[in-house]
């Protein structure tokens, strides 16, 4: 991927014009609320992807990049809003500049043009998660398992795996239904053949017996065996001369009509009734669910979640409601994905059975209509045809639902239809047809035999062909189920492995930032379309993070889970990440560990971090996580952020002094010393009077810090003496002497005693007087920090609790043993 060197922003979000020089390294942006930090984050995201998640993401309905990304003064000229980023692409060893305007967000201008670089940015565009805000990171933690599964799969770029799974499921379902349909057709062919033969069951001997009896009448040779090639009518004359119409045997027609009228009399078969009723009630439940959903959606809160239903009226339209009831109602109505899956499966089964019954009836009716038309004079077949037509409409509605579950309404009315009931008119036509056939003169035995053999032939061939189809469909279905099952097994296993690896990294990271939580474990468990995330809670078991963990801890977990996921998705391409306010609620005790985690586990990733906490930024610097940062000191709509370069606070103090502005110089230095004192108090575990509101001023902190510094040096001298490390001892003694001298120059130890040198008085000092103070503090801080120019960090004690064993800095140049045992 890339590393950002510089960012140039014009008329974008709350920013008028701003240049930041990141130098390809980690970078911190710090400023109070509303000063433009997120504006920078949005600008980076926009420049690299053409999009701003904050404006176009979930539930941002009325917001848009075109409409709201330009500075409000330029909301009508989106061409004025532009961002340019100069970046290094380590994999290509090239520097390029990429520019985008809000007017043409899809077009990125790359200079110099370079297809390889373009490919890198294209890839970046498909990973917009490089920029995340605290709110977005939190969603991985607190989201419901079903949504988490989608979110995490999106982040891991696993949609394709899910897409393939759905394709296999669809294919398996289609094959299953077509198999069932083929089997039903085969069964109908079998029944028809049985009816024609007047046999309760098909039996080779009996079939041959019946066929041969008729062939005997015609003087034809006996058939010895039944094969697929068997021709029953072989040798028979084409048509009987006396027959009513070719191919229709009176006996067979009467048998068919009798079977139909028996079926009509039996009304709805009990098994089909059970299927139909269960399908109907399931469908009604589904529909309710849909209604509840659209109701909820029309009130606009479904996207933010049920937990927001806490008010007694809709926050959008003020319609009063009973919050508890509504919540319960919605909960009861909204089916989970899993339930939906099983519901649809059993629905499909029941519906297929009903469709089979309807199909059978439709076929019998069509046949009866043909008989009606074949009589001479013919019976009107229109009513029968329209009944058959109605039946196939009902079947079509059911089929449509099977193919698209949103076609619920049609399926419900289809199932409410009493398909087994025959209308009066149609029934009359059936009776007439039956009468007509009964009244037909019995044809000669020979004609009867000819007609019988023709029907037998026809139905036998149909049975053969439907059986072949059913067999092929059966095999196809078996294959479909098999490839589907294999796919599920394989993909689940791969996903489980991934989730295990991610959970393991997550656990490592989280342990690293909370080193006291030794037994901590995090688990990611995948169920179909669901991903549960549970974490240990003080050895009492594992629970969803939201159950017992504090928000600060949840934030920490969010960060760790995000890092684990990114590591897994991008591997060594994870070269760049923007974390907007993500570290906000990591508590003071864990800041150093977070910095170290980022620094040590992701040394090749460029982090851009924003915070509104100055001490936090200071920590990042002290810990060597960032070398550079940018303070946003204030914001107004005309000018955008006012920036203050912290890297050179001394220069700024000097500039104030040059202008004879002692009060400003004093204020700057006081604020700066406050940060440093807070950092050092923590680093050195200085003894400070405890304050519940953590509102320590310089007088509370600095004298104790300086005391503690001397005390730790003394401790180091004792230790060196104990271990006979003479050189170290001498060096530390020199350091202590230097400390004593430099501290004295600052007058800090006199603050309590001599009011006239107190820092409150600084603003009344003359320029020369204050210059002396400045120089003294600059020298003192220079003395404390690591002398390695690449590090320059402030030393700290390890371990963080109990007897301190070592005074060190993050590069290891400062490394003082404090142990005497």
């Amino acid at each position: 991927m890339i590393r950002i060197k510089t960012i140039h922003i014009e008329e974008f979000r709350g920013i008028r014009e701003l240049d930041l020089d990141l130098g390809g390294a980690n970078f911190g942006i710090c400023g109070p609320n509303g000063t433009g930090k997120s504006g920078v984050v949005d600008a980076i995201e926009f420049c690299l992807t053409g999009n701003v998640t904050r404006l176009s993401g979930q539930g941002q309905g009325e917001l848009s990049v075109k409409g709201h990304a330009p500075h409000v003064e330029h909301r009508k000229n989106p061409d004025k809003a532009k961002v340019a980023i100069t970046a290094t692409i380590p994999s290509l060893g090239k520097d390029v500049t990429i520019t985008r305007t809000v007017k043409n967000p899809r077009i990125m201008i790359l200079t110099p043009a370079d297809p390889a670089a373009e490919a890198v940015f294209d890839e970046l565009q498909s990973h917009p998660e490089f920029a995340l805000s605290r709110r977005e990171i939190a969603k991985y933690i607190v989201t419901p398992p079903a949504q988490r599964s989608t979110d995490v799969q999106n982040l891991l770029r696993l949609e394709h795996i899910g897409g393939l799974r759905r394709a296999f499921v669809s294919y398996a379902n289609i094959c299953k239904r077509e198999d069932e349909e083929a089997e039903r057709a085969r069964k109908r062919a079998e029944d028809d053949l049985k009816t024609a033969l007047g046999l309760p069951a098909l039996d080779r001997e009996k079939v041959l017996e019946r066929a041969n009896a008729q062939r005997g009448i015609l003087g034809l040779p006996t058939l010895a065996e039944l094969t697929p090639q068997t021709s029953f009518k072989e040798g028979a004359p084409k048509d009987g001369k006396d027959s009513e119409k070719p191919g229709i045997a009176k006996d067979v027609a009467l048998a068919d009509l009798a079977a139909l009228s028996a079926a009509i009399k039996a009304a709805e078969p009990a098994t089909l009734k059970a299927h139909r009723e269960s399908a109907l009630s399931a469908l009604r439940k589904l529909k309710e669910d849909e209604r509840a959903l659209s109701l909820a959606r029309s009130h606009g809160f479904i996207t933010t979640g049920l937990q927001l239903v806490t008010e007694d009226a809709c926050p959008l339209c003020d319609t009063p409601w009973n919050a508890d009831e509504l919540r319960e109602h919605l909960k009861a109505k909204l089916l989970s994905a899993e339930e939906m899956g099983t519901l649809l499966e059993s629905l499909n089964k029941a519906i297929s059975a009903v469709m089979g019954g309807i199909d059978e009836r439709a076929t019998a009716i069509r046949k009866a209509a043909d008989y009606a038309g074949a009589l001479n004079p013919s019976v009107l077949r229109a009513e029968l045809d329209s009944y058959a037509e109605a039946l196939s409409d009902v079947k079509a509605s059911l089929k449509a639902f099977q193919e698209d579950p949103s076609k619920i309404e049609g399926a419900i009315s289809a199932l409410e239809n009493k398909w087994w009931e025959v209308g009066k008119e149609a029934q009359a036509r059936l009776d007439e047809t039956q009468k007509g056939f009964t009244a037909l003169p019995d044809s000669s035995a020979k004609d009867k035999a000819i007609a019988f053999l023709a029907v037998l032939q026809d139905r036998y061939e149909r049975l053969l062909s439907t059986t072949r189809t059913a067999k092929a469909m059966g095999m196809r279905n078996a294959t479909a189920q098999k490839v589907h099952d294999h796919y599920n097994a394989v993909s689940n296993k791969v996903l489980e492995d991934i989730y295990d690896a991610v959970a393991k990294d997550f656990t490592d990271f989280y342990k690293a930032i909370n080193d006291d939580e030794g037994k901590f474990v995090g688990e990611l468990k995948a169920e179909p379309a669901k991903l549960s995330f549970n974490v240990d809670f003080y050895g009492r078991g594992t629970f969803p993070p939201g159950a017992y963990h504090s928000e600060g801890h949840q934030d920490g977990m969010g960060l760790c889970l995000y890092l684990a996921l990114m590591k897994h998705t991008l591997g060594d391409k994870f070269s760049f990440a923007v974390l907007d306010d993500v570290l906000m609620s990591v508590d003071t005790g864990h800041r150093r560990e977070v910095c170290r985690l980022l620094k040590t586990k992701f040394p090749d990733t460029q982090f851009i971090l924003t915070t509104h906490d100055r001490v936090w930024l200071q920590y990042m610097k002290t810990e060597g996580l960032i070398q550079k940062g940018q303070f946003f000191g204030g914001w107004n709509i005309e000018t955008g952020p006012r920036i203050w370069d912290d890297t050179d606070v001394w220069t700024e103090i000097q500039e104030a002094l040059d202008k004879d502005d002692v009060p400003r110089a004093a204020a700057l230095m006081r604020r700066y010393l406050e940060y440093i004192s807070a950092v050092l108090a923590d680093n050195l575990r200085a003894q400070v009077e405890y304050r519940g509101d953590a509102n320590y001023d310089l007088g509370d902190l600095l004298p104790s810090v300086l005391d503690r510094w001397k005390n730790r040096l003394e401790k180091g001298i004792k230790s060196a003496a104990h271990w006979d490390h003479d050189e170290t001892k001498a060096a530390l003694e020199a350091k202590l002497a230097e400390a004593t001298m430099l501290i004295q120059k600052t007058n800090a130890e006199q603050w309590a005693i001599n009011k006239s040198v107190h820092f409150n008085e600084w603003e009344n000092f003359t320029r020369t007087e204050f210059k002396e103070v400045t120089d003294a503090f600059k020298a003192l801080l220079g003395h404390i920090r690591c002398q390695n120019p690449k590090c320059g960090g402030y030393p700290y004690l390890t371990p963080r609790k109990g007897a301190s064993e070592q005074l060190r800095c993050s590069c290891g140049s400062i490394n003082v043993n404090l142990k005497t045992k």
Partner: protein
Amino acid sequence: MSSCSLNCPQWQLDDVPKLRNSVNEQHNNPLSPTVTKVLDEYLDTLLADESLGDAVAKQLDALLRTGKVPKIEDIDTALSPLPKGGDG
């Protein structure tokens, strides 16, 4: 995918078996390492299943590696050992 979060049936319907016309999401992306891994292991499993011919396994594998979600018809063709005529 819809913009709905939560246990939203709209989302669930999306995850539930959908048919012919619904499964033509286009994914032309190069295969991610994870997808490749799934497909590699899947091919092994298909080849190990003796009830499925090797030819079928390879045809299906080739189809899945195009990087698109295959159409139902394409899966059907890939799984049919012989080119099919009509709908027998």
